[in-house]
Protein backbone atom coordinates (compact mmCIF):
# COMPACT_ATOMS: atom_id res chain seq x y z
CA UNK A 1 0.00 0.00 0.00
CA UNK A 2 1.62 3.30 -1.09
CA UNK A 3 0.18 5.24 1.90
CA UNK A 4 1.55 2.68 4.39
CA UNK A 5 4.90 2.75 2.71
CA UNK A 6 5.08 6.52 3.01
CA UNK A 7 4.25 6.37 6.71
CA UNK A 8 6.80 3.59 7.30
CA UNK A 9 9.52 5.51 5.51
CA UNK A 10 8.81 8.62 7.55
CA UNK A 11 8.79 6.61 10.76
CA UNK A 12 12.13 4.96 10.03
CA UNK A 13 13.68 8.25 8.94
CA UNK A 14 12.32 10.00 12.05
CA UNK A 15 13.69 7.28 14.33
CA UNK A 16 17.12 7.47 12.76
CA UNK A 17 17.10 11.25 12.90
CA UNK A 18 16.24 11.30 16.59
CA UNK A 19 18.97 8.69 17.20
CA UNK A 20 21.38 10.98 15.38
CA UNK A 21 20.52 13.87 17.70
CA UNK A 22 20.95 11.82 20.87
CA UNK A 23 24.12 10.16 19.62
CA UNK A 24 25.59 13.55 18.65
CA UNK A 25 24.76 14.95 22.09
CA UNK A 26 26.53 11.99 23.70
CA UNK A 27 29.59 12.41 21.48
CA UNK A 28 29.75 16.15 22.24
CA UNK A 29 29.75 15.50 25.99
CA UNK A 30 30.48 12.23 27.81
CA UNK A 31 31.75 10.39 24.73
CA UNK A 32 34.67 12.77 24.40
CA UNK A 33 35.17 13.68 28.04
CA UNK A 34 38.86 13.73 28.82
CA UNK A 35 38.87 15.08 32.35
CA UNK A 36 42.38 13.83 33.04
CA UNK A 37 43.83 16.12 30.40
CA UNK A 38 45.29 19.53 31.23
CA UNK A 39 43.53 22.77 30.32
CA UNK A 40 44.82 24.53 27.24
CA UNK A 41 46.91 27.55 28.27
CA UNK A 42 46.45 30.94 26.68
CA UNK A 43 49.80 30.56 24.93
CA UNK A 44 48.77 27.14 23.54
CA UNK A 45 45.47 28.59 22.42
CA UNK A 46 47.30 31.27 20.46
CA UNK A 47 49.55 28.55 19.05
CA UNK A 48 46.49 26.66 17.86
CA UNK A 49 45.44 29.81 16.00
CA UNK A 50 48.91 30.18 14.44
CA UNK A 51 48.80 26.52 13.41
CA UNK A 52 45.60 27.30 11.49
CA UNK A 53 46.87 30.60 10.13
CA UNK A 54 49.76 28.89 8.31
CA UNK A 55 47.68 25.83 7.38
CA UNK A 56 50.21 23.47 8.97
CA UNK A 57 47.67 20.62 8.75
CA UNK A 58 48.18 20.54 4.97
CA UNK A 59 51.45 18.68 5.63
CA UNK A 60 51.28 17.48 9.26
CA UNK A 61 48.99 15.29 11.28
CA UNK A 62 47.71 14.88 14.83
CA UNK A 63 46.70 11.31 15.65
CA UNK A 64 47.34 10.39 12.02
CA UNK A 65 44.80 12.90 10.72
CA UNK A 66 46.01 15.57 8.32
CA UNK A 67 48.43 15.82 5.40
CA UNK A 68 51.19 13.28 4.79
CA UNK A 69 54.00 15.41 3.44
CA UNK A 70 55.52 15.91 6.88
CA UNK A 71 55.63 13.83 10.08
CA UNK A 72 52.84 13.36 12.62
CA UNK A 73 53.24 15.96 15.37
CA UNK A 74 51.19 14.41 18.19
CA UNK A 75 54.27 13.47 20.23
CA UNK A 76 56.95 15.49 18.47
CA UNK A 77 57.84 17.23 21.76
CA UNK A 78 58.48 14.05 23.75
CA UNK A 79 60.25 12.41 20.80
CA UNK A 80 63.33 14.56 21.42
CA UNK A 81 63.26 14.21 25.22
CA UNK A 82 64.18 17.22 27.33
CA UNK A 83 65.29 19.11 24.22
CA UNK A 84 61.92 18.62 22.51
CA UNK A 85 60.69 22.18 22.76
CA UNK A 86 64.04 23.62 21.63
CA UNK A 87 64.26 21.26 18.65
CA UNK A 88 60.67 22.04 17.61
CA UNK A 89 61.28 25.78 17.92
CA UNK A 90 64.41 25.50 15.75
CA UNK A 91 62.57 23.55 13.05
CA UNK A 92 59.69 26.02 13.00
CA UNK A 93 61.89 29.12 12.98
CA UNK A 94 64.40 27.94 10.38
CA UNK A 95 62.57 25.39 8.27
CA UNK A 96 64.12 22.14 7.04
CA UNK A 97 65.14 20.65 3.70
CA UNK A 98 61.48 19.88 2.97
CA UNK A 99 59.67 22.47 5.11
CA UNK A 100 60.03 26.13 4.15
CA UNK A 101 60.74 28.84 6.65
CA UNK A 102 57.25 30.29 6.89
CA UNK A 103 58.48 33.49 8.53
CA UNK A 104 56.86 33.11 11.95
CA UNK A 105 57.91 35.76 14.45
CA UNK A 106 59.51 34.58 17.74
CA UNK A 107 56.24 34.92 19.69
CA UNK A 108 54.37 32.83 17.13
CA UNK A 109 57.10 30.17 17.29
CA UNK A 110 56.81 29.98 21.09
CA UNK A 111 53.02 29.81 20.87
CA UNK A 112 53.13 26.92 18.41
CA UNK A 113 55.63 25.10 20.64
CA UNK A 114 53.25 25.60 23.59
CA UNK A 115 50.43 24.17 21.49
CA UNK A 116 52.53 21.16 20.47
CA UNK A 117 53.43 20.60 24.14
CA UNK A 118 49.75 20.64 25.02
CA UNK A 119 48.91 18.16 22.24
CA UNK A 120 51.76 15.95 23.44
CA UNK A 121 49.99 15.51 26.78
CA UNK A 122 46.70 14.39 25.27
CA UNK A 123 47.79 10.88 24.34
CA UNK A 124 50.23 8.68 22.46
CA UNK A 125 50.24 8.20 18.73
CA UNK A 126 50.85 5.69 17.34
CA UNK A 127 49.94 3.75 20.49
CA UNK A 128 52.87 1.97 22.07
CA UNK A 129 51.02 -0.21 24.55
CA UNK A 130 47.99 -1.86 23.10
CA UNK A 131 46.20 -5.16 22.92
CA UNK A 132 44.49 -6.62 19.86
CA UNK A 133 41.43 -8.72 20.64
CA UNK A 134 40.50 -11.87 18.75
CA UNK A 135 37.64 -10.05 17.04
CA UNK A 136 39.89 -7.33 15.67
CA UNK A 137 39.48 -4.41 18.06
CA UNK A 138 42.35 -2.61 19.77
CA UNK A 139 42.56 -1.60 23.43
CA UNK A 140 45.13 1.09 24.04
CA UNK A 141 46.71 2.78 27.02
CA UNK A 142 45.02 6.14 26.46
CA UNK A 143 41.46 4.81 26.34
CA UNK A 144 39.23 6.45 28.96
CA UNK A 145 38.56 4.04 31.80
Amino acid sequence: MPGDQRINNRLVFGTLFVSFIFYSAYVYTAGTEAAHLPQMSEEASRGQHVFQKYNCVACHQFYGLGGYMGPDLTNVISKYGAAGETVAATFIASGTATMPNLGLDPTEVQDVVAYLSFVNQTGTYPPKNYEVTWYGTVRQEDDPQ
Partner: protein
Amino acid sequence: MIARDRDLVGLNFIRLGMLSLGVGMFFGVIGGFQFLFPEFLRELLFTKTRPIHVSMVVSWIFLVAIGGIYFYLPRQQKLKLWSPNAARIHFWVFIVTGLAILFSYLTGQFGGREYFEFPAALSIPIFLTWILFGVNYFNTVRQQKGPWPVYYWMWGTGVVFFFITFCEAYLWLIPYFRESMVREIIVQWKSYGALTGSWNMLVYGTAIYVATRIAGNQDAARSKMAYSLYFLGLFNLIFGWAHHTYLVPSQTWIRLFAYAVSMTELFILGKILWDWRSSLSEYQKNRHCNAYRFMFAADIWVFINLVLALIISVPAFNLITHGTHITVAHAMGSTIGINSMILLSSVFYIIREELPQNVHASCSKQVMTGFWVANISLAVFFLALVMAGLGRGLYDGASFQEMATQIRPFMMVFAVSGITLMLGFWVVLWNAFRLIGEIITPVSSEQTQPELA
Protein backbone atom coordinates in the same frame (compact mmCIF):
# COMPACT_ATOMS: atom_id res chain seq x y z
CA MET B 1 16.73 20.12 -28.61
CA ILE B 2 16.65 23.55 -27.02
CA ALA B 3 16.72 23.52 -23.26
CA ARG B 4 14.17 25.80 -21.68
CA ASP B 5 15.50 28.67 -19.62
CA ARG B 6 14.34 27.13 -16.36
CA ASP B 7 16.44 24.01 -17.06
CA LEU B 8 19.57 25.93 -17.86
CA VAL B 9 20.60 26.54 -14.26
CA GLY B 10 21.14 22.80 -13.77
CA LEU B 11 23.30 22.61 -16.87
CA ASN B 12 25.27 25.66 -15.75
CA PHE B 13 25.97 23.98 -12.41
CA ILE B 14 27.19 20.92 -14.32
CA ARG B 15 29.47 22.93 -16.59
CA LEU B 16 30.88 24.82 -13.62
CA GLY B 17 31.51 21.47 -11.91
CA MET B 18 33.41 20.17 -14.93
CA LEU B 19 35.53 23.30 -15.02
CA SER B 20 36.20 22.92 -11.31
CA LEU B 21 37.36 19.32 -11.75
CA GLY B 22 39.60 20.19 -14.70
CA VAL B 23 41.38 22.94 -12.76
CA GLY B 24 41.34 21.01 -9.47
CA MET B 25 43.13 18.05 -11.05
CA PHE B 26 45.81 20.38 -12.39
CA PHE B 27 46.52 21.63 -8.87
CA GLY B 28 46.49 18.01 -7.69
CA VAL B 29 49.25 17.16 -10.16
CA ILE B 30 51.30 20.16 -8.99
CA GLY B 31 50.79 19.05 -5.38
CA GLY B 32 51.85 15.49 -6.27
CA PHE B 33 55.17 16.75 -7.60
CA GLN B 34 55.65 19.12 -4.68
CA PHE B 35 55.31 16.08 -2.47
CA LEU B 36 58.36 14.60 -4.22
CA PHE B 37 60.28 17.79 -4.95
CA PRO B 38 59.51 20.37 -2.25
CA GLU B 39 61.41 23.04 -4.23
CA PHE B 40 58.99 22.67 -7.18
CA LEU B 41 56.98 25.90 -7.55
CA ARG B 42 58.13 27.09 -4.13
CA GLU B 43 56.13 30.31 -4.58
CA LEU B 44 52.97 28.21 -4.62
CA LEU B 45 53.46 26.19 -1.45
CA PHE B 46 51.91 22.77 -0.87
CA THR B 47 49.92 24.46 1.90
CA LYS B 48 48.13 26.30 -0.92
CA THR B 49 47.97 23.71 -3.69
CA ARG B 50 46.50 21.00 -1.45
CA PRO B 51 43.43 22.98 -0.28
CA ILE B 52 42.89 24.36 -3.80
CA HIS B 53 42.95 20.83 -5.21
CA VAL B 54 40.69 19.39 -2.52
CA SER B 55 38.18 22.25 -2.61
CA MET B 56 37.87 22.19 -6.38
CA VAL B 57 37.44 18.45 -6.76
CA VAL B 58 34.93 18.32 -3.90
CA SER B 59 33.11 21.22 -5.58
CA TRP B 60 32.91 19.12 -8.75
CA ILE B 61 31.02 16.45 -6.83
CA PHE B 62 28.59 18.89 -5.27
CA LEU B 63 28.08 21.06 -8.36
CA VAL B 64 27.32 18.18 -10.72
CA ALA B 65 25.10 16.41 -8.20
CA ILE B 66 23.19 19.65 -7.51
CA GLY B 67 23.07 20.47 -11.23
CA GLY B 68 21.59 17.06 -11.93
CA ILE B 69 18.84 17.62 -9.36
CA TYR B 70 18.05 21.10 -10.72
CA PHE B 71 17.89 19.61 -14.21
CA TYR B 72 16.11 16.31 -13.67
CA LEU B 73 13.26 17.63 -11.54
CA PRO B 74 11.76 20.12 -14.01
CA ARG B 75 12.99 18.60 -17.23
CA GLN B 76 12.34 14.88 -16.79
CA GLN B 77 10.20 14.56 -13.67
CA LYS B 78 7.93 17.37 -14.87
CA LEU B 79 7.95 19.00 -11.44
CA LYS B 80 7.92 22.76 -11.70
CA LEU B 81 10.93 24.16 -9.87
CA TRP B 82 9.56 26.01 -6.86
CA SER B 83 11.80 28.98 -7.50
CA PRO B 84 14.06 29.14 -10.58
CA ASN B 85 15.32 32.49 -9.27
CA ALA B 86 16.48 30.89 -6.02
CA ALA B 87 18.40 28.35 -8.12
CA ARG B 88 20.03 31.15 -10.09
CA ILE B 89 20.98 32.99 -6.88
CA HIS B 90 22.41 29.70 -5.58
CA PHE B 91 24.53 29.38 -8.73
CA TRP B 92 25.93 32.92 -8.69
CA VAL B 93 26.61 32.94 -4.96
CA PHE B 94 28.49 29.67 -5.39
CA ILE B 95 30.64 31.21 -8.12
CA VAL B 96 31.43 34.36 -6.14
CA THR B 97 32.13 32.40 -2.94
CA GLY B 98 34.27 29.90 -4.84
CA LEU B 99 36.35 32.71 -6.33
CA ALA B 100 36.74 34.32 -2.90
CA ILE B 101 37.91 31.00 -1.45
CA LEU B 102 40.40 30.54 -4.29
CA PHE B 103 41.70 34.06 -3.69
CA SER B 104 42.11 33.37 0.03
CA TYR B 105 44.10 30.20 -0.71
CA LEU B 106 46.31 31.76 -3.36
CA THR B 107 47.15 34.68 -1.09
CA GLY B 108 47.77 32.38 1.88
CA GLN B 109 44.90 33.68 4.00
CA PHE B 110 43.87 30.65 5.97
CA GLY B 111 41.81 30.43 9.12
CA GLY B 112 39.78 27.26 9.04
CA ARG B 113 40.32 23.59 9.69
CA GLU B 114 41.38 20.81 7.34
CA TYR B 115 39.19 20.70 4.18
CA PHE B 116 37.65 24.08 5.05
CA GLU B 117 40.89 26.01 5.45
CA PHE B 118 39.44 29.29 4.17
CA PRO B 119 38.46 32.03 6.68
CA ALA B 120 35.33 30.87 8.51
CA ALA B 121 33.31 33.91 7.34
CA LEU B 122 33.33 32.52 3.79
CA SER B 123 31.25 29.57 4.93
CA ILE B 124 28.28 31.90 5.60
CA PRO B 125 27.21 32.26 1.93
CA ILE B 126 27.56 28.50 1.44
CA PHE B 127 25.41 27.96 4.52
CA LEU B 128 22.73 30.46 3.41
CA THR B 129 22.49 29.26 -0.19
CA TRP B 130 22.26 25.68 1.01
CA ILE B 131 19.14 26.67 2.95
CA LEU B 132 17.82 28.18 -0.27
CA PHE B 133 18.61 24.96 -2.13
CA GLY B 134 16.90 22.87 0.55
CA VAL B 135 13.74 25.00 0.52
CA ASN B 136 13.65 24.89 -3.27
CA TYR B 137 14.19 21.13 -3.37
CA PHE B 138 11.57 20.17 -0.78
CA ASN B 139 8.95 22.57 -2.14
CA THR B 140 9.52 21.17 -5.63
CA VAL B 141 9.33 17.46 -4.76
CA ARG B 142 6.25 18.10 -2.60
CA GLN B 143 4.33 18.25 -5.88
CA GLN B 144 5.05 14.55 -6.42
CA LYS B 145 1.93 12.43 -6.03
CA GLY B 146 2.26 9.20 -4.07
CA PRO B 147 5.30 7.84 -2.23
CA TRP B 148 8.63 9.26 -3.22
CA PRO B 149 11.00 7.07 -5.21
CA VAL B 150 14.10 6.24 -3.21
CA TYR B 151 16.26 8.79 -5.02
CA TYR B 152 14.05 11.64 -3.74
CA TRP B 153 14.68 10.38 -0.23
CA MET B 154 18.39 10.14 -0.90
CA TRP B 155 18.66 13.62 -2.37
CA GLY B 156 16.60 15.04 0.49
CA THR B 157 18.77 13.24 3.04
CA GLY B 158 21.89 14.58 1.36
CA VAL B 159 20.49 18.12 1.52
CA VAL B 160 19.51 17.88 5.21
CA PHE B 161 22.63 16.12 6.44
CA PHE B 162 25.03 18.31 4.52
CA PHE B 163 23.47 21.30 6.24
CA ILE B 164 23.79 19.69 9.68
CA THR B 165 27.30 18.34 9.23
CA PHE B 166 28.57 21.56 7.64
CA CYS B 167 27.40 23.39 10.77
CA GLU B 168 28.99 20.67 12.92
CA ALA B 169 32.31 21.18 11.11
CA TYR B 170 32.34 24.70 12.53
CA LEU B 171 31.74 23.78 16.16
CA TRP B 172 35.45 24.39 16.72
CA LEU B 173 34.60 28.08 16.77
CA ILE B 174 33.09 27.47 20.23
CA PRO B 175 35.78 27.30 22.97
CA TYR B 176 34.06 24.29 24.62
CA PHE B 177 35.01 22.23 21.57
CA ARG B 178 38.20 24.00 20.54
CA GLU B 179 39.92 23.75 23.91
CA SER B 180 39.54 20.01 24.28
CA MET B 181 41.89 18.27 21.86
CA VAL B 182 40.10 14.91 21.96
CA ARG B 183 36.62 16.41 21.65
CA GLU B 184 37.69 18.69 18.84
CA ILE B 185 39.24 15.93 16.73
CA ILE B 186 36.39 13.49 17.32
CA VAL B 187 33.68 16.05 16.51
CA GLN B 188 35.61 17.33 13.50
CA TRP B 189 35.91 13.83 12.03
CA LYS B 190 32.37 12.93 13.02
CA SER B 191 31.26 15.84 10.87
CA TYR B 192 33.57 14.96 7.97
CA GLY B 193 32.49 11.32 8.02
CA ALA B 194 28.80 12.25 7.92
CA LEU B 195 29.44 15.03 5.42
CA THR B 196 30.99 12.48 3.05
CA GLY B 197 27.93 10.33 3.68
CA SER B 198 25.69 13.27 2.77
CA TRP B 199 27.37 13.88 -0.59
CA ASN B 200 27.29 10.14 -1.21
CA MET B 201 23.52 10.35 -0.73
CA LEU B 202 23.36 13.03 -3.44
CA VAL B 203 25.61 11.05 -5.79
CA TYR B 204 24.15 7.59 -5.15
CA GLY B 205 20.66 9.05 -5.50
CA THR B 206 21.76 10.31 -8.92
CA ALA B 207 23.16 6.85 -9.74
CA ILE B 208 19.86 5.18 -8.95
CA TYR B 209 17.92 7.83 -10.85
CA VAL B 210 20.06 7.42 -13.99
CA ALA B 211 20.12 3.63 -13.66
CA THR B 212 16.36 3.31 -13.41
CA ARG B 213 15.80 5.78 -16.26
CA ILE B 214 18.16 3.95 -18.58
CA ALA B 215 16.64 0.59 -17.70
CA GLY B 216 13.16 2.08 -18.05
CA ASN B 217 12.24 0.39 -14.79
CA GLN B 218 10.91 2.79 -12.15
CA ASP B 219 9.80 -0.06 -9.89
CA ALA B 220 13.40 -0.62 -8.83
CA ALA B 221 13.39 2.84 -7.21
CA ARG B 222 10.24 2.05 -5.21
CA SER B 223 10.99 -1.49 -4.10
CA LYS B 224 11.22 -2.47 -0.44
CA MET B 225 14.79 -3.55 -1.06
CA ALA B 226 15.73 -0.09 -2.38
CA TYR B 227 14.23 1.64 0.69
CA SER B 228 15.81 -0.87 3.06
CA LEU B 229 19.24 -0.35 1.53
CA TYR B 230 18.77 3.42 1.66
CA PHE B 231 17.98 3.30 5.38
CA LEU B 232 20.96 1.07 5.97
CA GLY B 233 23.02 3.72 4.20
CA LEU B 234 21.56 6.42 6.44
CA PHE B 235 22.33 4.30 9.50
CA ASN B 236 25.89 4.11 8.23
CA LEU B 237 26.05 7.87 7.69
CA ILE B 238 24.97 8.50 11.28
CA PHE B 239 27.01 5.87 13.11
CA GLY B 240 29.82 4.71 10.84
CA TRP B 241 32.16 7.72 10.98
CA ALA B 242 34.31 6.62 13.92
CA HIS B 243 36.58 4.44 11.79
CA HIS B 244 38.41 7.73 11.13
CA THR B 245 39.20 8.11 14.83
CA TYR B 246 39.87 4.57 16.08
CA LEU B 247 43.23 5.72 17.44
CA VAL B 248 42.04 8.90 19.13
CA PRO B 249 41.34 8.26 22.83
CA SER B 250 37.53 8.15 23.12
CA GLN B 251 34.86 5.87 24.53
CA THR B 252 35.53 2.32 23.32
CA TRP B 253 31.95 1.56 22.42
CA ILE B 254 31.82 4.39 19.87
CA ARG B 255 34.60 2.61 18.01
CA LEU B 256 33.03 -0.80 18.45
CA PHE B 257 29.75 0.47 17.11
CA ALA B 258 31.41 2.11 14.10
CA TYR B 259 33.34 -1.09 13.43
CA ALA B 260 30.08 -3.01 13.28
CA VAL B 261 28.27 -0.66 10.92
CA SER B 262 31.05 0.79 8.80
CA MET B 263 31.35 0.58 5.10
CA THR B 264 28.16 -1.20 4.17
CA GLU B 265 27.12 1.73 2.00
CA LEU B 266 29.36 0.77 -0.88
CA PHE B 267 27.96 -2.73 -0.86
CA ILE B 268 24.48 -1.26 -1.00
CA LEU B 269 25.17 0.70 -4.14
CA GLY B 270 27.04 -2.17 -5.73
CA LYS B 271 24.05 -4.42 -5.28
CA ILE B 272 21.63 -1.93 -6.78
CA LEU B 273 23.87 -1.19 -9.72
CA TRP B 274 24.55 -4.87 -10.25
CA ASP B 275 20.87 -5.68 -10.34
CA TRP B 276 20.25 -2.81 -12.71
CA ARG B 277 22.97 -3.78 -15.17
CA SER B 278 21.84 -7.36 -15.46
CA SER B 279 18.39 -6.16 -16.50
CA LEU B 280 19.60 -4.07 -19.42
CA SER B 281 19.03 -5.23 -22.93
CA GLU B 282 21.84 -4.97 -25.45
CA TYR B 283 19.97 -2.22 -27.25
CA GLN B 284 19.66 -0.13 -24.11
CA LYS B 285 23.34 -0.61 -23.38
CA ASN B 286 24.34 0.73 -26.78
CA ARG B 287 21.82 3.51 -26.81
CA HIS B 288 23.30 5.00 -23.68
CA CYS B 289 26.84 3.98 -24.45
CA ASN B 290 28.83 6.54 -22.46
CA ALA B 291 26.40 6.66 -19.56
CA TYR B 292 26.49 2.87 -19.30
CA ARG B 293 30.26 2.73 -19.63
CA PHE B 294 30.88 5.16 -16.76
CA MET B 295 28.29 3.45 -14.57
CA PHE B 296 29.97 0.12 -15.28
CA ALA B 297 33.34 1.60 -14.23
CA ALA B 298 31.73 2.89 -11.01
CA ASP B 299 30.46 -0.63 -10.37
CA ILE B 300 33.98 -2.06 -10.62
CA TRP B 301 35.40 0.66 -8.37
CA VAL B 302 32.67 0.02 -5.81
CA PHE B 303 33.90 -3.52 -5.39
CA ILE B 304 37.58 -2.56 -5.29
CA ASN B 305 36.89 0.11 -2.67
CA LEU B 306 34.62 -2.17 -0.73
CA VAL B 307 37.46 -4.64 -0.22
CA LEU B 308 39.86 -1.90 0.89
CA ALA B 309 37.23 -0.21 3.07
CA LEU B 310 36.41 -3.43 4.87
CA ILE B 311 40.08 -4.11 5.55
CA ILE B 312 40.84 -0.66 6.94
CA SER B 313 37.68 -0.59 9.02
CA VAL B 314 38.95 -3.51 11.11
CA PRO B 315 40.69 -1.76 14.01
CA ALA B 316 43.56 -4.27 14.07
CA PHE B 317 44.39 -3.48 10.44
CA ASN B 318 43.57 0.19 10.90
CA LEU B 319 46.43 0.29 13.40
CA ILE B 320 48.77 -0.18 10.42
CA THR B 321 46.90 1.67 7.69
CA HIS B 322 45.71 4.74 9.64
CA GLY B 323 47.70 7.89 8.88
CA THR B 324 49.17 6.35 5.73
CA HIS B 325 48.61 6.73 2.00
CA ILE B 326 46.20 3.78 2.11
CA THR B 327 43.65 6.21 3.52
CA VAL B 328 44.37 8.48 0.55
CA ALA B 329 43.94 5.51 -1.82
CA HIS B 330 40.54 4.85 -0.27
CA ALA B 331 39.54 8.52 -0.57
CA MET B 332 40.78 8.78 -4.17
CA GLY B 333 39.24 5.45 -5.16
CA SER B 334 35.88 6.59 -3.78
CA THR B 335 35.84 10.14 -5.09
CA ILE B 336 37.36 9.44 -8.51
CA GLY B 337 36.44 5.82 -9.13
CA ILE B 338 32.93 5.89 -7.72
CA ASN B 339 31.62 9.45 -7.38
CA SER B 340 33.20 10.89 -10.51
CA MET B 341 32.30 7.91 -12.70
CA ILE B 342 28.68 8.10 -11.53
CA LEU B 343 28.54 11.84 -12.14
CA LEU B 344 30.03 11.46 -15.62
CA SER B 345 27.42 8.79 -16.29
CA SER B 346 24.77 11.31 -15.26
CA VAL B 347 26.30 13.98 -17.52
CA PHE B 348 26.42 11.67 -20.56
CA TYR B 349 22.90 10.45 -19.84
CA ILE B 350 21.68 14.07 -20.03
CA ILE B 351 23.67 14.63 -23.22
CA ARG B 352 22.23 11.52 -24.88
CA GLU B 353 18.70 12.45 -23.90
CA GLU B 354 19.01 16.06 -25.05
CA LEU B 355 21.04 15.47 -28.20
CA PRO B 356 19.58 12.26 -29.63
CA GLN B 357 20.63 13.23 -33.15
CA ASN B 358 24.31 13.60 -32.22
CA VAL B 359 26.17 10.29 -32.46
CA HIS B 360 29.06 11.72 -30.45
CA ALA B 361 26.63 12.22 -27.60
CA SER B 362 26.33 8.47 -27.26
CA CYS B 363 29.70 7.00 -28.18
CA SER B 364 32.86 8.59 -29.48
CA LYS B 365 36.45 7.46 -29.86
CA GLN B 366 37.74 10.44 -27.93
CA VAL B 367 35.55 9.81 -24.90
CA MET B 368 36.33 6.10 -25.01
CA THR B 369 40.08 6.84 -25.13
CA GLY B 370 39.76 9.27 -22.23
CA PHE B 371 37.71 6.74 -20.32
CA TRP B 372 40.33 4.01 -20.63
CA VAL B 373 43.30 6.28 -19.99
CA ALA B 374 41.58 7.63 -16.84
CA ASN B 375 40.61 4.22 -15.50
CA ILE B 376 43.93 2.50 -16.17
CA SER B 377 45.78 5.49 -14.69
CA LEU B 378 43.51 5.42 -11.67
CA ALA B 379 44.28 1.74 -11.12
CA VAL B 380 48.05 2.44 -11.19
CA PHE B 381 47.59 5.55 -9.02
CA PHE B 382 45.52 3.59 -6.50
CA LEU B 383 48.03 0.70 -6.32
CA ALA B 384 50.96 3.11 -5.91
CA LEU B 385 49.20 4.74 -2.95
CA VAL B 386 48.42 1.36 -1.37
CA MET B 387 52.06 0.30 -1.71
CA ALA B 388 53.31 3.63 -0.32
CA GLY B 389 50.84 3.29 2.56
CA LEU B 390 52.03 -0.21 3.34
CA GLY B 391 55.61 1.05 3.27
CA ARG B 392 54.73 3.78 5.75
CA GLY B 393 52.51 1.62 7.95
CA LEU B 394 55.01 -1.21 8.27
CA TYR B 395 58.07 1.02 8.76
CA ASP B 396 59.31 0.50 12.30
CA GLY B 397 62.16 2.99 12.44
CA ALA B 398 62.13 6.44 13.99
CA SER B 399 63.19 8.56 11.02
CA PHE B 400 60.48 10.18 8.94
CA GLN B 401 63.00 10.99 6.20
CA GLU B 402 64.18 7.38 5.98
CA MET B 403 60.58 6.18 5.63
CA ALA B 404 59.90 8.86 2.98
CA THR B 405 62.96 7.74 1.00
CA GLN B 406 61.82 4.11 1.12
CA ILE B 407 58.40 4.86 -0.34
CA ARG B 408 59.66 7.42 -2.86
CA PRO B 409 59.51 5.06 -5.91
CA PHE B 410 55.80 4.47 -5.24
CA MET B 411 55.20 8.19 -4.85
CA MET B 412 56.96 8.74 -8.18
CA VAL B 413 54.56 6.28 -9.85
CA PHE B 414 51.69 8.06 -8.07
CA ALA B 415 52.76 11.48 -9.40
CA VAL B 416 53.29 10.30 -12.99
CA SER B 417 50.03 8.33 -13.11
CA GLY B 418 48.36 11.48 -11.75
CA ILE B 419 49.34 13.27 -14.98
CA THR B 420 47.83 10.59 -17.24
CA LEU B 421 44.76 10.42 -14.99
CA MET B 422 44.31 14.16 -15.43
CA LEU B 423 44.80 13.95 -19.21
CA GLY B 424 42.26 11.13 -19.51
CA PHE B 425 39.72 13.12 -17.52
CA TRP B 426 40.43 16.28 -19.49
CA VAL B 427 39.56 14.51 -22.76
CA VAL B 428 36.28 13.26 -21.29
CA LEU B 429 35.48 16.61 -19.68
CA TRP B 430 36.24 18.59 -22.81
CA ASN B 431 33.83 16.47 -24.85
CA ALA B 432 31.13 16.61 -22.18
CA PHE B 433 31.61 20.36 -21.69
CA ARG B 434 31.30 20.96 -25.44
CA LEU B 435 28.20 18.77 -25.78
CA ILE B 436 26.47 20.37 -22.79
CA GLY B 437 27.26 23.67 -24.50
CA GLU B 438 25.41 22.41 -27.58
CA ILE B 439 22.35 21.75 -25.42
CA ILE B 440 22.51 25.24 -23.99
CA THR B 441 23.22 26.91 -27.34
CA PRO B 442 22.01 24.59 -30.11
CA VAL B 443 24.14 24.66 -33.27
CA SER B 444 22.94 24.17 -36.84
CA SER B 445 22.12 20.65 -37.93
CA GLU B 446 25.08 20.56 -40.38
CA GLN B 447 27.51 21.02 -37.54
CA THR B 448 26.05 18.21 -35.49
CA GLN B 449 26.61 15.50 -38.12
CA PRO B 450 29.65 13.61 -36.85
CA GLU B 451 31.50 10.69 -38.30
CA LEU B 452 30.60 7.39 -36.72
CA ALA B 453 32.77 6.40 -33.81
